[in-house]
């Protein structure tokens, strides 16, 4: 089981230059502490124009700082929006490779297509095309990373032969992921040999179904890159305290604040009639966790099913449940709108690392390099993580 932290960089109103700086500073400190504590991944999203919810429009810059200020935690650039109006695929490949070098081979690249009209409309992107351009991007980026003479005649872009530089530090290239919210996207990931980066905390039952479908499909995938990443990660919230009542009192409002902000986004489907976006809502909708079933460890404590809020023993039971349905990693949101004071966030992280992580792996393992992609039989040999 891998443990990550996940950043939207949400900023509370009233907006000021100072609060923007504070959110970036506290988040970077959380990354440094998580790195020392043995967390495996630090992810940062790409969003544009999403007031309050996410001011993380240049994640590669934030993550370059994370890479420079840490030594072992893997750097999750995800998800990069694979829409040409926002990112030319060459720029995605270049920036990611540079980040991989800066981090000493610690990059994970997530891919996505954006869900809000606020973002797609702001860049003049056609919602009908985003799934197609995403598919094109995930196929060309590994080629740009590995071929010295890359050329392309495609739908969203074409280019004559060039050597896209630099090449990433990891050989053959960093692991790739797809963010998964709507049912069915996990199959898109599996067919392409890409990791399943869940950004919606679904029920145990739903996750079990998705994971099984994912593994069935990825066993016969046609990988778009030179490595297969068969990991299944989900997103969750984290607030850990010795007293579950305190955890509940502090952690639930944080989760609710995030969920409400998410529900207030202006979803593409609401604005634009299209078959390309079938779900109204994204993370928050699915993170409105139902009351826990009677046999769930959360039920007795009045906590929603599967939520990472509680005392250490409770969180161990919750994570064991996630593990039992095939989840190989959980990425935690630690705060929303700076609702929880930074020292409490860090204490929660420390307690989790001290009491919960050891239940899933030996403490000596916790501080070792984190993850190497699964190699494809017959494909280019994976050179490891370069660390």
């Amino acid at each position, binding site marked *: 089981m891998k443990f990550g932290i996940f950043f939207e960089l949400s900023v509370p*109103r009233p907006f000021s230059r100072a609060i923007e700086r504070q959110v970036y500073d506290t988040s970077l400190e959380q990354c440094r502490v998580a790195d020392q504590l043995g967390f495996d991944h630090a992810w940062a999203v790409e969003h544009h*124009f*999403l*007031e*309050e919810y996410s001011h993380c429009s240049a994640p590669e810059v934030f993550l370059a700082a994370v890479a420079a200020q840490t030594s072992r935690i893997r750097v999750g650039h995800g998800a990069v929006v694979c829409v040409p109006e926002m990112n030319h695929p060459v720029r995605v490949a270049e920036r990611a490779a540079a980040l991989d070098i800066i981090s000493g081979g610690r990059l994970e690249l997530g891919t996505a297509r954006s869900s809000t*009209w*606020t973002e797609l*409309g702001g860049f003049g992107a056609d919602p009908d095309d985003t799934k197609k351009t995403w598919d094109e991007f995930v196929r060309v980026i590994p080629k740009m990373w590995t071929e010295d003479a890359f050329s392309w005649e495609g739908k969203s872009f074409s280019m004559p032969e060039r050597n896209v530089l630099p090449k990433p530090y990891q050989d053959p290239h960093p692991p790739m992921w797809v963010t998964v919210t709507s049912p069915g996207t996990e199959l898109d990931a599996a067919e392409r040999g890409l990791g399943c980066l869940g950004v919606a905390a679904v029920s145990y039952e739903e996750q079990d179904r998705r994971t099984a479908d994912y593994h069935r499909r990825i066993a016969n995938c046609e990988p778009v890159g030179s490595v297969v990443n068969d990991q299944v990660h989900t997103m969750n919230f984290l607030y850990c305290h010795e007293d579950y009542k305190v955890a509940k009192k502090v952690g639930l409002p944080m989760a609710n604040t995030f*969920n*409400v*902000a998410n*529900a*207030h986004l*202006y*979803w593409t*489907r*609401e*604005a*634009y*009639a*299209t*078959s390309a976006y*079938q779900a*109204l*809502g994204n993370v*928050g*909708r699915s993170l*409105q966790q139902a009351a826990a079933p009677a046999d769930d460890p959360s039920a007795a404590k009045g906590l929603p099913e599967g939520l990472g809020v509680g005392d250490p023993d409770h969180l161990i039971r919750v994570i064991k449940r996630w593990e039992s349905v095939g989840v190989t990693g959980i990425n935690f949101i630690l705060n929303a709108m700076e609702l929880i004071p930074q020292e409490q966030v860090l204490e929660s992280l420390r307690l989790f690392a001290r009491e919960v992580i050891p239940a899933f792996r030996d403490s000596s393992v916790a501080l070792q390099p984190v993850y190497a992609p699964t190699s494809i039989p017959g494909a280019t040999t994976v050179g490891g993580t370069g660390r």
Partner: protein
Amino acid sequence: MITGTAHVETLTQEIATIEQWSNLGAELLGVESFQLIAEMRSTAREAVLPAGLHPTSPPALSIQAWNVAESPWGPFSFATTRVSCRSGVRARGFTTAAVASTATAAEGLTGCFGFPTTVGPVKLRRHYDGVDLESEGLVVTGLDPTPLGSSDVQYTGTLNLANTPNGLRLVQVEATHSGDRVERVQGRILDFDPAQWGNSLLSPYHVVSTSIAVETINLPAVRFVCRPGELAFSGTEKIEIEQR
């Protein structure tokens, strides 16, 4: 999180009155429907909504129209404008004005569901290459239909500010749409008089998407209302059967 800042007094100048709650909904059959979504200037974001609602960003206006072949009130045409918003975590449209072509339909839509409906001309005309919509202070056109799936258009629930047996409330109308034929068209707003449509701050300037459909619309009996000055998390009231 931002909420509406409009004074309720300014929103209640021409609101509907629901004398008593009804168990009965209304089924509208053989409906030719039209929906246009347009972004508005940010000056219309908080200022056109009551404090109980959250605006979307960017603010957006939906213009909807129906040609109804069969209903409890007979055939009629209808047009309405709604500001996109959130009630709690739910996507909604706050109605700023509505026009029905017959007095019977206007009375039904007002008295049962709280639409602030006046009687006036509404002409929704489909033709081979598109659609035209005309009403007082409103001229819209849509060209070049492209077929879509029946579930490819999102209709959000409606909130109508009305005097009700519970007091002044936002009345939740959760219509269901069963489309037989859905098409996207290239929409253009040729004329829009914001004052005529409920608020001089309404400023639809950038059309996002326009669709037309042939469908059945079901307006179920009202089940929930919200206090207009209070967020839905605490301000929502269920309409009890005994009250009806």
